[in-house]
């Protein structure tokens, strides 16, 4: 019975993290972005510096009318947000936070599992883009697909490089194998992975699929209320997953001083720093054009990732 209780607790913890961490990232984005632009950001909701802004947003979204356009494919339209959201929740359970089993569930092929499941989320955007019966949405969907196909590959290759270095696909074991000199060794792979991840989340500067100044909001143009909120939640949950994953794979996860007791804090700190970088890039860099985006993936990231794999393989075999 205690087994059942423990599993229930883990599930609850994962669900809580899934609902809270994206909000924290979102609020941090509100504030950091505002200050980077010389503004203050939300200041009212909740009193102190508008800390409850996103909760207020959620309440607002829940009360808004849910509109399905007359020309839309009803079922697919309504189902799309769930498809976009759920993969990130499922992925969250295998991300190790601290040593000694501080993880939702250890999966032996964890890395492979994460990459496979994360790729499913894009189907939600595609469904939304197609089912909306809107030109902007369809364009957004097409761009989403094109972007996924360009950036999934460098992500896979860079992740494979870490798996080679550690000799395992289990995420906790990868962190356990980590040594400080992996940082320079896997630096290129880490950059490629993070960049490709950003592109897959459609975060600026890779936000062509939702480019608001040309195609409104891409695949999500027709969405209102709760379903729109779920798409937004998916985006921020994606940031959380990407940052934690990059931390675990390339930054050594819980490694740091007093990692036995404070390991989880290190993971979260590193992840937070990465999330800040995500926000920082958004405010600093203009959107890439579609052709630049594709060229960047195929002629920069993929060759770099292949080079990283070669480097990793040679070092690993020679070092033995």
């Amino acid at each position, binding site marked *: 019975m205690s087994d059942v209780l423990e599993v229930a607790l883990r599930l609850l913890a994962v669900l809580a993290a899934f609902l809270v961490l994206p909000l924290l990232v979102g609020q941090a984005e509100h504030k*950091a972005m*505002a*200050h*980077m*632009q*010389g*503004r*203050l950001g939300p*200041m009212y909701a909740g009193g102190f510096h508008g800390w409850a802004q996103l909760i207020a947003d959620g309440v607002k979204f829940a009360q808004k009318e849910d509109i399905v356009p007359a020309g839309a494919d009803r079922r697919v339209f309504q189902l799309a947000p769930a498809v976009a959201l759920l993969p990130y929740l499922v992925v969250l359970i295998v991300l190790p936070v601290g040593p000694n089993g501080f993880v939702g569930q250890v999966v032996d092929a964890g890395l492979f599992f994460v990459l496979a499941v994360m790729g499913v989320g894009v189907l939600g955007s595609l469904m939304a883009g197609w089912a909306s019966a809107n030109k902007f949405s369809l364009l957004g969907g097409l761009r989403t697909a094109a972007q996924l196909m360009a950036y999934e590959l460098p992500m896979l290759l860079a992740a494979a490089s870490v798996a080679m270095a550690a000799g395992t696909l289990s995420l906790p074991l990868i962190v356990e194998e980590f040594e400080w000199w992996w940082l320079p060794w896997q630096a290129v792979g880490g950059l490629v992975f993070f960049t490709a991840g950003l592109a897959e989340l459609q975060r600026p500067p890779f936000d062509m699929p939702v480019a608001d100044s040309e195609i409104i909001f891409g695949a999500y143009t027709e969405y209102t209320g709760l379903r729109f909120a779920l798409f937004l939640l998916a985006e921020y949950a994606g940031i959380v997953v990407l940052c934690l994953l990059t931390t675990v794979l390339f930054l050594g996860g819980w490694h740091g001083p007093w990692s036995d007791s404070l390991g989880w804090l290190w993971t979260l700190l590193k992840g937070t720093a990465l999330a800040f970088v995500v926000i*920082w*890039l958004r*405010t*600093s*860099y203009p959107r890439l054009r579609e052709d630049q985006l594709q060229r960047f993936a195929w002629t920069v990231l993929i060759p770099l990732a292949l080079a990283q794999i070669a480097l990793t393989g040679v070092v690993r075999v020679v070092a033995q």
Partner: protein
Amino acid sequence: MSDDAPRSEPSGTASGRRLPGRGLAKGLAVTLRTMTRRSVTDQYPDALPELPPRSRGVIGLFEENCTVCMLCARECPDWCIYIDSHKETVPATTPGGRERSRNVLDRFAIDFALCMYCGICIEVCPFDALFWSPEFEYAEEDILDLTHERDRLREWMWTVPVPPALDPAGEEPKEVAAARKAAERPDPPEQPGTEPGRPGGRGPRREGEA
């Protein structure tokens, strides 16, 4: 930074972009620097903005000065001023004098949903009946309520700031100068200096000035 500074000197701008991603780094630096500075936002409803004296917020009507000459309504580029009036006869003040007719204002309204705040009506008004007021908080839920009728336009009048003091170094206003000149002169002699060659139309205007 230190090692590419000397390099960029001789090579010049032809190979201006040395390091790939330098632009990105610069951009990141700019945003980070901005983040550490105080933000420039005013928290508007809490802290009212300091408006410059010539802010164009809303137009006030000083009804007593209005003669229903219709200039403002005619000059308005988007026809947002509505004026209704009727004529009234004023009985002669002196026995045997002529009766005079006078325009009486019935309605004066400005539709601020149409107004584009160009200020031409104020410029064009010969009788100083329209004024800019800096007040701007008159948003409405219904667009029809943005048509301010006479009473409301009059209320705005009390928010019109006093005109700024004249620049002490500046030139004297024309009317003041003319009045002073007239007062300094003991008695108006026949002006010898009325230049020849000027058409005769000048005389009466000068009288009017004085």
